[in-house]
């Protein structure tokens, strides 16, 4: 077990180092000068040189790479070229929006998708089943930004119940903040709910064929207990796998939804940073996303053990 964890950790560090090298090299060959972006069309050469020195861009590339790695190892992510504040602070601020948004979306997706999948499987072949499958098709086919715009039209422009976009910050109060996250979370959750409904349904259908389900029914357990304790629990493994995959997608991939709803999250930060050539922020965020994806996969593997005791022994 310890050997296994050590091997995993070694692979984790190696992957991160590779990612660091690749992202540094790619951004290095990309044309563009962050100082020129800051100072605009009228900048004098002296002002540009002064800003280069201020940003540390006057040092040779290998030295900058090592400084960056060393900084990350000691927790110093550098200073944003555009905002001129520590990158760690920026990421922290944005995380406070993206993380709750992703969690909210996942919770909504599970709350909508799982019951639908279970109901569809237990009424296999009936109208309810067809209805759920139709919902799942639609949920996957509708682009989430379009669904988001639709929500805005109905609930913000039409009814005026929710703010159309933006995020007032957690200091404005929990209720106000959650209100601004409601529509984006729902828009993000819809396709996820569709995926979860489909995966739950097919996993349930598979387990319902199993002998132990027939045995459970034969020994007189009620249909709901059979479903909950025997069928659903065994059907959870593929669902959890999907959840793990989707969570990293949600964190890194909320770019479009965060733009539609003008949310100050990580996705919007990385989009802005690329457009403004804020390379240090791009580098740090790519590393963060790579690290997160690896960690979430690791956590999913641990979850398998919790769900299926047989995997704990292996």
């Amino acid at each position, binding site marked *: 077990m310890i050997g296994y964890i050590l091997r995993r950790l070694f692979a984790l560090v190696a992957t991160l180092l590779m990612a660091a090298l690749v992202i540094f090299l790619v951004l290095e060959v990309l044309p*563009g000068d962050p100082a020129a972006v800051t100072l605009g069309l009228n900048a004098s050469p*002296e002002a540009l040189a002064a800003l280069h020195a201020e940003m540390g861009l006057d040092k040779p590339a290998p030295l900058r790479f090592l400084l960056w790695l060393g900084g990350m190892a000691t927790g110093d992510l550098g200073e944003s070229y555009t905002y001129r504040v520590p990158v760690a602070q920026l990421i922290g601020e944005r995380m406070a929006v993206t993380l709750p948004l992703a969690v909210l979306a996942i919770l909504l997706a599970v709350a909508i998708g799982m019951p639908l999948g279970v109901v569809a499987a237990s009424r296999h072949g009936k109208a309810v089943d067809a209805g759920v499958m139709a919902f799942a098709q639609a949920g996957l086919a509708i682009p989430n930004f379009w669904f988001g*715009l639709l929500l805005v039209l109905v609930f913000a*422009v039409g009814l005026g119940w929710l703010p159309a*976009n*933006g995020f007032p910050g957690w200091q404005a109060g929990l209720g106000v903040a959650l209100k601004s996250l409601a529509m984006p979370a729902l828009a993000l959750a819809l396709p996820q709910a569709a995926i979860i409904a489909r995966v739950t349904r097919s996993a349930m259908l598979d387990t319902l064929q199993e002998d132990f389900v027939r045995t459970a029914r034969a020994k007189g357990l009620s249909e709901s207990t059979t479903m909950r304790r025997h069928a659903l629990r065994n059907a959870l493994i593929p669902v959890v796998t999907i959840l793990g995959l989707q969570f990293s997608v949600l964190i890194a991939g909320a770019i479009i939804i965060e733009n539609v709803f003008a949310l*100050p999250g990580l996705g919007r930060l990385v989009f802005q940073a690329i457009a403004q050539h804020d390379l240090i922020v791009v580098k740090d965020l790519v590393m963060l996303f790579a690290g997160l994806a690896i960690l979430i996969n690791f956590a999913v593997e641990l979850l398998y053990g919790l769900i299926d005791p047989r995997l704990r022994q292996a």
Partner: protein
Amino acid sequence: MTTRRDLLAGAGLAALAAQLPMAALAQAKDSVTISMTLEPPTLDPTSGAAQAIREVTLQNIFEGLVKMDRTGKIQPCLAQSWEIAPDNVTHTFKLRTGVTFHDGTPFTAEQVKFSFERAVAADSTNAQKQLFTPIAEIAAPDPATVVIKLKQPTANFIYGLSWGDAVIVAPQSAANNKTNPVGTGPFKFVRWNRGDRLEFARNDAYWGEKPALAKATFRFLSDPQAQVAALQAGDVDANTNLSAPEAVAQLKSDPKLKVTIGKTEGETVLGTNNAKAPFDKLKVRQAIAHALDRKTIALGVYGFDVTLIGSHFSPLHPAYVDLTGTYPYDPAKAKALLAEAGFPNGFSCTLKLPPPSYARRAGEIVAAMLGQVGITVSIEPLEFPQWLERVFRNKDYDLSIIAHTEPLDIDIYARDQYYFQYRNPEFKTLIAKISGTLDETARNELYKQAQQMLARDAVNGFLFILPKITVAKANLDGMWTDWPLPVTPLAELRWR
């Protein structure tokens, strides 16, 4: 059948509806929420060129010795008055007294000296350093007087002092202005939720007329549809310059909103590499000018009429002359000129486009129009940093489209290293003469000659002036219609 629950819900809604207008009115009295497209990267206008920095801070947080009013005229601000000595280089400014910075520091001549010396220092990262290079020496004989001696007569020196790059900052707070700006203006900084909003509060110790509003919030909505939705939902009270021109008709039909289309200093040009064949031939550039139907281009980009230009000058300036008729739209003439220049079958070239949607949309139309006279254009979209590197710095381009938004920037054509690579000694002499001509009437006459020279030489394809599309709630007064300088003075806003 109506159930009891429906009835209750209905009653609740009615009660809510009755409360809403009152609540909205009470709230609307002394605060305003304004949306804009781009977020300022920092809040220090002396260390970056981003227009968004000026839009939020200039005339709100920070002030200069002079300020520009909404008609483009220079007005006294921190300087009550000034005079230029007969030597044409010595400027004496009488400063306002009793002014304090937001942190309580009194404003004196020392801070003026500090601010300008900081702007010309070797390690200065001021984006408009050239504004200050004419300064030979600054003296502060007493706390309310500043004497600035220039190296040579510089006509637009005072004009430049109204820009964000020339605001007065205090030595102890200057280093932190990027994140915690401290100025002398009618509003002070409260909070910045990066990526979302910026909050200001009225400066109750302000030296001038007290602003009507106690609180102001700027919100940053980069998505055009998000801007429209926030206006329609009533979440924001105004938008400084809407980036969804296609929504203008829809918003105009909303009685709760008012929409104005104003002018800016943003000359949008088909930038042409004058040093590269075949664009070094005057006839080729004239052919391009004849091939462009500006009215159709502008209409295609915006869907409504905007101001067209025939040279590099904004109609907001009194010296403006309409030169749109210099080379009128005439494809047949364009073809003939191309043949005379030695290209009877036309030629191929690239058009490198930066990200703004006006550039991308105009680019498609320009390419089609040039195609009709035999010039095959391949479009190459670029991100802004790449555009700056390849087009602006390395001049590795044939054609490009961008708006030049700095006010009164016709002198860029006199710079040899500028990406148009115009390099006309006659024009340079003219610009030098303008700079040395302090008499306004004579100077405006020279500006007219400069505009005519650029138009005649067809240096660039001159297209249109970027419009300012201002949307505001119908009962909010005071938003600027035109942008002689991109600012949104909050002190001029009030609710009716």
